[in-house]
């Protein structure tokens, strides 16, 4: 019973970090989605110049640890642009996630059968119209499983933003652990929160997948 009392007290404290974690994750996912879709489109449909830029972005960013990107954004870029730690951390995570989402969407774009593009052009759609209203909606559906996986990875990577002082769930758990010297309770509380978030994300994405499944 005392354990549960401690757990509830700890949860109350850590819960304040929940919104930070959710905020960081959502911002990072949305930023990464924009980067990922645009870069994937450039890689698959762009001219040689854009293809090269997009490839360089996705290869380099995937090779660099996320934490380094966070440091660069907060300690270097944010000297010139006024970025709060929250935004620097979230944008850095989004930038990194964008590189992975590029690969997810690139694969999705490429697995839309080529006949779809041909048929779209045949009824007089421009290339861009065809990408927009025929290829993209199908690619998004094909990308959903991989994207869901990436979403849970970003959720876990959101712990990294603490290095620039954003107090998310894990840091709050560390603070509790340092104060009470009862790491088990502190990290159990954090674990519960992450578990809840991950389950919820997974459920949501599975629902989306079922709802928008492509019938091939």
């Amino acid at each position: 019973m005392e354990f549960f009392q401690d757990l509830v007290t700890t949860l109350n404290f850590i819960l304040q970090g929940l919104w930070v974690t959710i905020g960081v994750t959502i911002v990072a996912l949305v930023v990464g989605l924009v980067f990922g879709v645009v870069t994937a489109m450039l890689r698959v449909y762009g001219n040689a110049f854009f293809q090269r830029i997009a490839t360089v972005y996705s290869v380099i960013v995937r090779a660099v640890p996320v934490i380094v990107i966070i440091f660069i954004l907060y300690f270097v870029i944010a000297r010139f642009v006024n970025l709060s730690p929250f935004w620097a951390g979230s944008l850095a995570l989004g930038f990194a996630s964008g590189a992975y989402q590029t690969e997810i969407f690139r694969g999705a774009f490429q697995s839309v059968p080529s006949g779809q593009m041909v048929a779209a052009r045949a009824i007089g759609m421009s290339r861009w119209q065809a990408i927009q209203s025929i290829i993209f909606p199908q690619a998004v559906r094909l990308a959903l499983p991989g994207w869901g996986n990436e979403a849970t990875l970003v959720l876990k990577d959101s712990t990294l933003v603490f290095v620039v002082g954003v107090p998310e769930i894990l840091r709050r758990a560390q603070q509790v652990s340092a104060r009470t010297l009862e790491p088990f309770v502190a990290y159990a509380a954090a674990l519960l929160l992450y578990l809840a978030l991950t389950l919820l994300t997974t459920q949501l994405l599975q629902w989306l997948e079922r709802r928008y499944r492509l019938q091939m």
Partner: protein
Amino acid sequence: MTTAPILRIEDVYKSFGETRVLNGFSLTIQPQEVVVLVGPSGSGKSTLLRCINLLHPPTSGRIWLEEQEITAPGVNQDKVRQRIGMVFQEFNLFTHLTALGNVMIGLTKVRKMHKQEAHDLAMFELERVGLVERAHHYPAQLSGGQKQRVAIARALGMDPHIMLFDEPTSALDPELTGEVLEVMQQLAKEGMTMIVVSHEMGFARQVASRVVFMEGGIVVEEGPPAQMFEQPVHERTRAFLRKITDLDEGGQ
């Protein structure tokens, strides 16, 4: 005949890398004609259709659609394709859209119609191919014959001046070809100009105004179906037609 031709193909060459597929192909088609294009595989039939609607622009040569030279530089190819309906062997229906959605999307996105107007026209086109009751089915829920009829409705929705059919029944089980050929026959009766790549000889005999035999990227022989089937001039034509006619009858 005094009417102006609807389509004029003049000395068209098409190569893919080293491989030359069309070798100075020429053909003129009058409005309301139904031309059935036959020839051995690799003779360039499908490539010709894709050259006509500029999906694969010719390497050289010129094509006129009505008064416009569509191979001229600076031509808006998207606009040209709106006037040319195309039906594919593999249907190529948009998998994420219902039958209705497949017909509507060109109307709203390309012809810029309002939703309601597009809906009504799409339903009309589905009715033409006898699929109103399947309007809200996804492609995966349709039979091959139904898919191909939706594809025809999708092409018709763009109000094309000419329709190209690229082996529209070859991917279908034999018992499903009839419903598609029926729709095509109805179209021909309504006066649609059509170029059909097909080995359905029954259809050619009944519906075609002309049969064109091509091989090696050029026209070998052409004429009304009766003449082509009964007394072809060229030995090659004779050999080829005998082969597919045998197959056709053997299959029944």
